[in-house]
């Protein structure tokens, strides 16, 4: 099953490689991983999308907690949460296709950031499903370049992952 795990860790050099190294050394799957400092500059926040059986996910969480630089973490999939990913996509846009791509972008509430005679760069935000649906709608033949940030996530309600 797919899980989204949010991790607060010390914003120190090498901390990210401990997390990444843990996944490769123990054969855990990483679907995506995002990382950036938080408003507290001593902390970074990682969002990892992974998958595995209940037992594997339990181990992933325990092993992450065991890393000395991990301060706190939460499995967002266990609670009601909001998940968002940003995608920048460059598509071929010529002749009648230009209007079609623009219309699709509007339907998906994307934005066109760059225009040339033959292409658009589109920005789209959403969860995994929405982004995949948009790529499917554009069709593989029109895609020139796809950049996905990987998922970030936050719990609904007042409860916060913080120190």
């Amino acid at each position, binding site marked *: 099953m797919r899980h989204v795990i949010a991790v607060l860790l*010390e914003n120190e050099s*090498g901390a990210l490689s401990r997390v990444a*190294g843990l996944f490769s050394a123990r054969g855990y799957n990483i679907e995506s991983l995002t990382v950036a400092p938080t408003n507290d500059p001593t902390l970074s926040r990682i969002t990892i999308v992974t998958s595995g059986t209940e*037992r594997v996910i*339990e*181990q992933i969480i325990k092993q992450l*907690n*065991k890393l*000395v*630089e991990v301060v706190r973490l939460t499995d967002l999939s266990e609670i009601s949460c909001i998940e968002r990913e940003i995608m920048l996509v460059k598509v071929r846009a010529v002749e009648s296709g230009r209007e079609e791509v623009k219309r699709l972008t509007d339907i998906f509430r994307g934005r066109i950031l760059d225009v040339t005679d033959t292409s658009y760069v589109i920005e789209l935000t959403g969860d995994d499903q929405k982004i995949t649906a948009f790529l499917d709608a554009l069709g593989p033949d029109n895609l020139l370049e796809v950049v996905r940030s990987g998922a970030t996530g936050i719990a609904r309600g007042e409860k916060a992952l913080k120190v």
Partner: protein
Amino acid sequence: MELSGGEVLIEALKEEGVEYIFGYPGGAVLHIYDALYEQNSVKHILVRHEQGATHAADGYARATGKAGVVLVTSGPGATNAVTGIATAFMDSIPMVIISGQVQSRFIGSDAFQEVDCIGITRPCVKHNFLVDSLESFAETIKKAFHVATTGRPGPVVIDIPKDFTTPGIKVPFDYPKTVEMRSYTPALEGHPGQIRKAVDLILSARRPMIYSGGGVVLGDASEQLTKFSRLLNYPVTNTLMGLGAFPSTDPQFVGMLGMHGTYEANMGMHDCDVLIAIGARFDDRVTGELESFCPHAKIVHVDIDPASISKNVKVDVPIVGNVAQVLGEMIKLIEATDKRADEDDLNDWWAQMRGWQSKECLSYDQSDEVIKPQAVIEAVWRATNGDAYVTSDVGQHQMWVAQYYPFDKPRRWINSGGLGTMGFGLPAALGVQLAFPDETVVCVTGEASIQMCIQELSTCLQYGTPVKIICLNNRYMGMVRQWQEFSYEKRYSHSYMDALPDFVKLTESYGHVGMRIENPADVDKSLQEAFAMKDRLVFMDFVTDQTENVYPMIEAGKGHHEMRLKPSRELA
């Protein structure tokens, strides 16, 4: 007080009560070695290879419970230390390893003797630190000792660039008394509700087993384990790492379990209805095939590391906490109640256990013509009154010590259980002997393993450590040969040790005493002779039966109830 980086290290080690530092100098640590030269409080032991330094510090740590300390240079110094660091990591041994690094401005430039020590050691340390300023060095050392020795212990590396130890550059020194790390807060006390739940289950058992491991030794909980077990009168089995935590000569002890454990311990595991796992981690050499592991049992598991719980085997009552504390609480609860396991059930269970024991799974054929390796270990036990510190290398001889040298005290049995590192025994014995100069320290080894760190004979001479080396010389990598016999139709591919040195001459050339024993009748006599030489290292080269195998055995893919006994004792 203003100190240079090298002096900061020495002062910090003094504050930590460090007695010995095991090391080898080189370019990146020359400033530190200069600081070492100026003082006498921390004694430096000059090994002959960095692997030896790590194993010696490891042996010291296992025997004393204190952190072992290592000092190596950058590049090859650090990479040579990696095997010993990984060995300590797998067995959760507290160690602090200080490695020199090239000057900070050269890091990443492929400088002379530069390796990414932090990157290389990351997967086999509890934690590691690259020192980023001289100002932070003292606090980093404090953190390293704190992390290494608390919670589930383990090795911690401090990589220090050479420019932070320059003699002329000094900073005010104030060693922190305590350290707080918001990201590192190991659990110490078990959850009271879980402990109560566990005790209820334990007292309702009909066929209970106590399965305890290295965590009891590391957590100094041997006394509590013994009291707990005696209170209940349940059978006790120990893992390879847990031997000595419960007295092995006690009738309640049913031997080691696992791949080369006793028949009774493994059958007990298979048939038990309540398994009480204490400071053990359900290692694959212990569990055998997981599909058929303890099929009838409800499992209680006490461990300080949450990640050890339900990793390989799903347990019913997990308790995260310090083993001594949790056992202490359990003892209180048991003493406060009259409830006990049903007496008839327990008697039946013990009768069953005695039935399994009557198979005498550890008996072996005696011989007047060729020395049986098992007989040597039993003779060593007699010659040392069962009270020596015994280190070992890895292979058949290691299993024979575990089977034929019953340890009655914790921290006496010192071996590389998790990583299985050949070459561990001799340097580990050096570390133990330094910690306890007046105790008998024995290194049981084989002619293959001993050659992996034999250069430390030189270190033993320099520091006058009178280790007694028992080499079971069967001219084979015995355990490899055994597996080839069982699983590869006796195709002994590269397991024969040809062109062996004359160990007697070799030992003598290192300035020690060498003995070669070929006749079974000479075993006891020569051991007495060797152990009487209190201040000499004696290398005893026992020429043993080449064909002897370690029995009983659970082969790969088999369960506890499918043990292979010695051929003449195979079950009808």
